[in-house]
């Protein structure tokens, strides 16, 4: 009975303390980043390394440099489980976090990105969908608060078709070839279809899409159809268990692995390892370097893992998804630094960080100074262009590790930007958005 009274007393004291302002104390020189992650559920094997990479980089920056220009970076993770509704819930819960609210938000899901575009725009909080999300949001005059750098799915699709062209002896040789797409039946998986169809019309290849419902644990019928149709190349826009299942099923129908190419979200170790040696030869597109032999990754090991503060295991550092989490954090911090140059070294609002993103100009020299040479690609954004100039490489799994087998492939941005603009203007029309005049934006700076 005494114990119960004590517990009730403590709970009441806590509640009164919170209500009267005795809650957590937030320092005024902190910059807050909401972290929408998925560390549980069917997509956790992919969500965990990405979340670890991002968090480890922020911890390293705080430990090594005391934050960004003296501003400590704080963050709070919220579990989305890769569900759109929970993603929105996480965003709403964290967007007003002191001292200045959310600096930006990285949804880590195309579906959540779609769900947040309207809300974040109303809240003046930038959405950074690095290598995912809505490709036409690259058109800045319409999507003021959405950033898609360094490459979109449309650019990824274009680069992969360019690569296939190089494999068959030239783009003109694509005519009559059969190219199939196995895709997650969700917003993410459907993103490249308009580009692949447009490119099919341009180059004359025959395109067929095969949808796989989430989570994609059973694709036998799909692969029997592919076996029957016998396409020259199969592309994959998969996620989570769908990737490894597809690779296994492709092997079971004898599809040649070196003609099977995944997008970057289908190209990590959890995707190939369950298939064992059957996955040997499988290829994936990448927009960044991979591995642990970069000064920035070594600093993470030194300042975070050697001190026992790492979010994952030391052996997981340097995997494709881990590195992508680090790169996401590098870009976000670079945007903060850019914004600080204009607004001062203080905690910034979402609107100010948006300015930093739109004026981001991450050069080779800056990347080298950050320790990311070879890992991160340079990025130059503007009012018109929220995608920038990222490129794509093709990597191949040799049964034990990934190897880059091409140099940088430059997507056809003249063609893509026309598509972005056309689609974005349609969105603007449907949503009564008046595109900004970028000439006026530039003049006001």
């Amino acid at each position, binding site marked *: 009975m005494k114990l119960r009274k004590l517990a009730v007393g403590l709970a009441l004291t806590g509640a009164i303390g919170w209500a009267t302002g005795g809650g957590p104390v937030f320092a005024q020189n902190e910059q807050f980043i909401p972290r929408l992650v998925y*560390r*549980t*559920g*069917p997509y*956790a*094997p992919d969500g*965990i390394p990405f979340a670890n990479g991002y968090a480890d980089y922020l911890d390293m920056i705080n430990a090594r440099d005391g934050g960004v220009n003296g501003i400590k970076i704080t963050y709070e993770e919220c579990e989305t489980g890769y569900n759109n509704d929970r993603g929105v819930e996480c965003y709403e819960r964290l967007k007003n976090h002191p001292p200045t609210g959310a600096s930006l938000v990285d949804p880590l899901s195309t579906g959540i990105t779609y769900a947040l575009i309207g809300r974040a725009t109303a809240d003046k909080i930038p959405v950074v969908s690095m290598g995912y999300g809505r490709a036409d949001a690259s058109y800045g005059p319409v999507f003021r608060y959405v950033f898609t750098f360094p490459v979109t799915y449309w650019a990824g699709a274009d680069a992969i078709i360019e690569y296939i062209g190089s494999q068959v002896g030239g783009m003109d040789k694509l005519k009559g070839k059969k190219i199939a797409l196995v895709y997650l*039946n969700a917003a993410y998986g459907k993103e490249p279809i308009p580009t692949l169809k447009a490119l099919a019309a341009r180059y004359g290849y025959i395109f067929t*899409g*095969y*949808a*796989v*419902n989430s*989570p994609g*644990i*059973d694709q*036998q*019928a*799909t692969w*029997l*159809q592919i*076996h*029957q149709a016998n396409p020259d190349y199969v592309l994959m826009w998969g996620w*989570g*268990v769908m990737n*490894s*299942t597809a690779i*296994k*099923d492709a*092997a*079971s*129908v*004898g599809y040649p692995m070196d003609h099977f190419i995944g997008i970057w979200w289908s190209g990590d170790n*959890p995707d190939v*390892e*369950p*298939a*064992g040696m*059957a996955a040997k030869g499988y290829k994936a597109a990448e927009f960044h370097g991979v591995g642990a032999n970069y000064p920035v990754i070594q600093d993470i090991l030194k300042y975070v893992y050697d001190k026992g503060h790492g979010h994952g295991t030391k052996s997981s550092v340097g995997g494709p998804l881990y590195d992508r989490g680090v790169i996401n954090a590098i870009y976000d911090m670079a945007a903060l630094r850019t914004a600080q140059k204009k607004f001062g070294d203080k905690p910034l609002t979402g609107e100010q960080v948006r300015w930093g993103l739109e004026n981001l100009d991450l050069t080779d020299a800056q990347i080298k100074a950050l320790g990311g040479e070879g890992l991160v690609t340079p990025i130059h954004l503007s009012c018109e262009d929220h995608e920038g100039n990222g490129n794509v490489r093709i990597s191949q799994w040799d049964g034990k590790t990934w190897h880059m087998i091409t140099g940088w492939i430059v997507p056809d941005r003249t063609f893509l930007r026309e598509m972005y603009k056309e689609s974005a203007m349609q969105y603007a029309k449907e949503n009564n958005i008046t595109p900004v005049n970028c000439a006026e934006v530039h003049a006001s700076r």
Partner: protein
Amino acid sequence: MHILYAILIGPFVTMAREPAFLIEVLIGGLLAGVMYSLVALGFVLIYKASGVFNYAQGTMVLFAALTFVGMLEAGLPVLLSLIAVIAVMIVLAFAVERVVLRPLVNQSEIILFMSTLGISYFLVGLGQILWGGDVHPLDIGIPSGPLTVHGILINQLDLYAAIVAGTLVVALALFFQKTRVGRALRAVADDHQAAMSVGIPLKQIWVVTWAIAGLVALAAGIMWGASLGVQFSLALVALKALPVLILGGFTSIPGAIVGGLIVGAAEKLGEVFWGPVIGSGVEDWFAYILALIFLLFRPQGLFGERIIERV
């Protein structure tokens, strides 16, 4: 008119034109169905003996496979790992009976169902704490390349799974027919009160049932884990078992097998021959539509017991 032809006639024309492909799809579907049956068996065992729809069966598949692969990765030999997991699943059965079922005895079915929801979440959390959230490859030595018999492509893993499932069904049938415990289980399934009146201890029977369901989960977990890698998505294989249960009946072991075969074959045929007409990705919901149609005409399933209640 064109759409009616595409749905009602076109697929059959394609089947007639490509009979080898039709057989390939049909065999693939039947073998995939056996994999579904493996999961459905666990549901049936528990429902038959205790009237509880065990929502945690999918998680038990995951937990058993995770524990098995965790033991292997810790360096234990295969046989020892297998024995250790069997021991873990038996301990789990004891724990479920003692901590969950016994305190809820005489509660309504929905309360017991809800308690299995709790077991499911508990096992997911425990699995992640013990073994982490990574994907664990599981190689049980089944070749992954294509196997072609008379020009018909067969998935080797599914073929082995069919052998495992077949063996499991025969073993379970023998257990239920020939052993004392098996007969006791059948008695409990038929009538709890009558079974208790002749001295069959209900609590022990529950432990045995959950332990057997745990072993079936282990077999399913190993086969599905070999296919997908051991990861948290394994828990979702339960979704594949639900239409099988509706078709085959919740209380029939042969029903789980036949239901699995029907669902496997129907969804593959649906995806391959009707998918291009109504949009690909029909495989998952096709099984549920089939189950719904069955519910309309035979609510108890193909082999399920007809429930007659006096009102």
